[in-house]
């Protein structure tokens, strides 16, 4: 009787038990650093002495929000995320559709199209820096050869092209992930839907609109949330190619935070920037969830 009670108790609380290891990891690796960062953001912590001598309250936040550098960095981050997402989703979707149609050498094409995603960011940035170099880069060489440009363009170095070039690089890097996830999504759509679409005589566009897109809505939602977080927080691509320049024309919030905390040694202010970044990313995600939460209610109805 007693044993049965213990087993029942265990059964009732098994879910909670399984959560404990995850919870411990969350507290140690997420909650503690987050709380420490919040605390640091309210101090004058300097990287020169590695200690804070004063609690400054919200002073760091006020200074950041009242300066234009933060807002320009935020706007750059939004542009970088938005255009990268559009490019990655468009190319990823087209590539996934093409791979669905291809009959021969499917695996070879799949591996080839997946290659960009396997590049380490340092190798990728070196590759693009060389290809786009104004003195010896192949892109300028080709464009000059085709008489499209008169003089070589410093793609990563000029104000008008720096952010655009990083976005192009990010699109090239990120589309395979979208492609692969959507390809998996296609497999979950029942064949009957396509057969009905054929019988109804739907054209290509109509098939996308009435069959594929509605069935992949949740996949798109998850992809959108993940890629938004990853791209908005992305640091290495921009830092290794443009360094946030020229001026601050390609500087995003993570770069601004890094420069403030590590190069200017104001870790307190740098921490405040990361907390603001967290708030903004959280806001975007909340909006996405709200949109997808509403759609779920609609579908339940």
């Amino acid at each position, binding site marked *: 009787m007693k044993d049965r009670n213990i087993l029942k108790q265990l059964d009732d609380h098994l879910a909670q038990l399984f959560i404990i290891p995850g919870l411990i990891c969350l507290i140690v690796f997420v909650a503690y650093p987050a709380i420490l960062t919040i605390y640091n953001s309210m101090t*004058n912590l*300097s*990287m*020169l*002495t*590695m*200690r804070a*001598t*004063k609690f400054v309250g919200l002073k760091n936040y006020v200074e950041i929000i009242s300066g234009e550098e933060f807002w320009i960095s935020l706007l750059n981050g939004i542009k970088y995320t938005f255009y990268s997402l559009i490019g990655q989703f468009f190319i990823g979707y087209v590539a996934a559709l093409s791979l669905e149609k291809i009959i021969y050498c499917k695996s070879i094409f799949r591996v080839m199209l997946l290659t960009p995603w396997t590049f380490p960011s340092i190798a990728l940035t070196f590759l693009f820096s060389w290809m786009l170099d*104004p*003195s*010896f880069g192949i892109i300028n060489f080709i464009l000059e050869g085709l008489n499209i440009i008169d*003089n*070589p363009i*410093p793609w*990563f*170095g*000029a*104000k008008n092209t*720096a952010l655009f070039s990083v976005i192009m690089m990010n699109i090239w890097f990120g589309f395979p992930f979208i492609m692969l996830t959507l390809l998996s999504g296609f497999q979950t759509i029942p064949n009957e839907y396509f057969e009905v679409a054929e019988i109804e005589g739907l054209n290509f566009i109509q098939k996308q609109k009435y069959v594929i897109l509605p069935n992949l809505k949740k996949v798109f939602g998850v992809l959108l949330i993940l890629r938004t977080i990853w791209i908005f927080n992305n640091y290495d691509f921009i*830092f290794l*190619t*443009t*360094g*946030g*320049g*020229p*001026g*601050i*024309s390609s500087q995003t919030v993570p770069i601004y935070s890094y*420069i403030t905390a*590590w*190069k*200017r*040694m*104001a870790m307190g202010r740098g921490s405040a920037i990361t907390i603001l970044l967290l708030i903004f990313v959280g806001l975007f995600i909340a909006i996405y969830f709200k949109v997808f939460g509403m759609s779920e209610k609609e579908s339940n109805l």
Partner: protein
Amino acid sequence: MKNKLIVFLMISCSLFSLFSSGANESEKPEKLTVWHGYSQTSRIDAMNAIGQKYTEKTGIPVEFEVVTWPNQAEKWRAAYAAGTMPDVMICLPDQATAMYFAGATVPADDAIKLIGGADRFLPGTLKEQFYDGHYIGVPHYAHSRLLIYRKDILEQHGLNPPKTWEEYLNVCKEINDPPHYAFQQLFNKSDYGSAFMLDVFMRNEGGKFFDENFNIVFDSPESIRAVQFLVDLYHIGSMPEAMNYIINDQFTLLNTGATYMTIDSAFTINSALENAPDIAAVMDVAEPPYDSYYLTTFPIVVGNTSNIDIANDFIAFMFEEENYVNFLHAILPGMNPVLKDIEDKTSSYWENPAFSNPLVGKCVDLQAKGLVDGWSIGFEYGVNPFASVCTAGYVEEMFQKIIIDNVPIEQAVAECAVKMQQAVDEQKEALGWE
């Protein structure tokens, strides 16, 4: 009773020998951790060879980690915060002082003594290591900046190497021939190429980053003239809108013939000799067109760890003639010795076959001139913890604003000075300085 006494003594002796041997074991560290910024294979190999020899001699394994110069600032701070500072680190002078003031390193006085005392070092090479009666680090090697130019291009235009900045500007104007440029300005914010160049020009104009109280005086008329000069130089002889070049890109630009001149250390010549012999054959060096040489020493610092004595011993081992000369030969020309006896023409340093090329010896001799009078960026008034403000990207950002956003020079300089002063004030506050 007697037996008991004998047994007691035997046990005592055994325990004593056991604990004393244990104590000896615990004194010997498991390994010695050394960080350095040497990313070239030849220098990595040279360091590894020294480490191997040290292990053979002492039985202590030496573990090396390459931490490139621009990454050192964040890496040591993260390590210090985590309690994983290396036992020995070879870094840039501004980082050596920053580490010292943060308590991440300890004085290197014992290492200097083991090497043979301060008198063994060349005059000038220790001045950036000495603070408040102690040596912050031991200079591993030194170099100063030279005028490096393509003699074939200058000859084609009937020009001599420039001796003044006005002449330099004129030469740039004459030889600039897009897509081949006279000179490449280095404006990338993640590096400090502009700050170095500006420092050189400011010295010539009489401008400085700091006054004697370590307040920013960068917005002086002299500094503004220097900024104006660099902007003019950019418009006359540098690739338009190319804002993201870093210091190391200079090698590639010169080696591919994309640029014709630079103000840099003899590493540039070494890179050409190794990678572009055709270009190296038409290169030459001369004294830079300014009075004050630009010195860079590369200090070896002792981490505030439990292996301080071993670290000092290892540093002294690095300076034993065979080890030191082999290291210096890893990049020749480029690294000048800091020890008098090694710089002496009778030492084994001069026995390397590379000296059969007169350009190599010329580079070493010219660089040696800068060791006495030169100083590093931010060290106008000696060792201080604020020098790293000069290389924190403010200067590069200022130039980008002037060139890209057409901000008037006076305004950009003033804004930059305010930001730098704010950074200095914050650091003074953190250090408890008035």
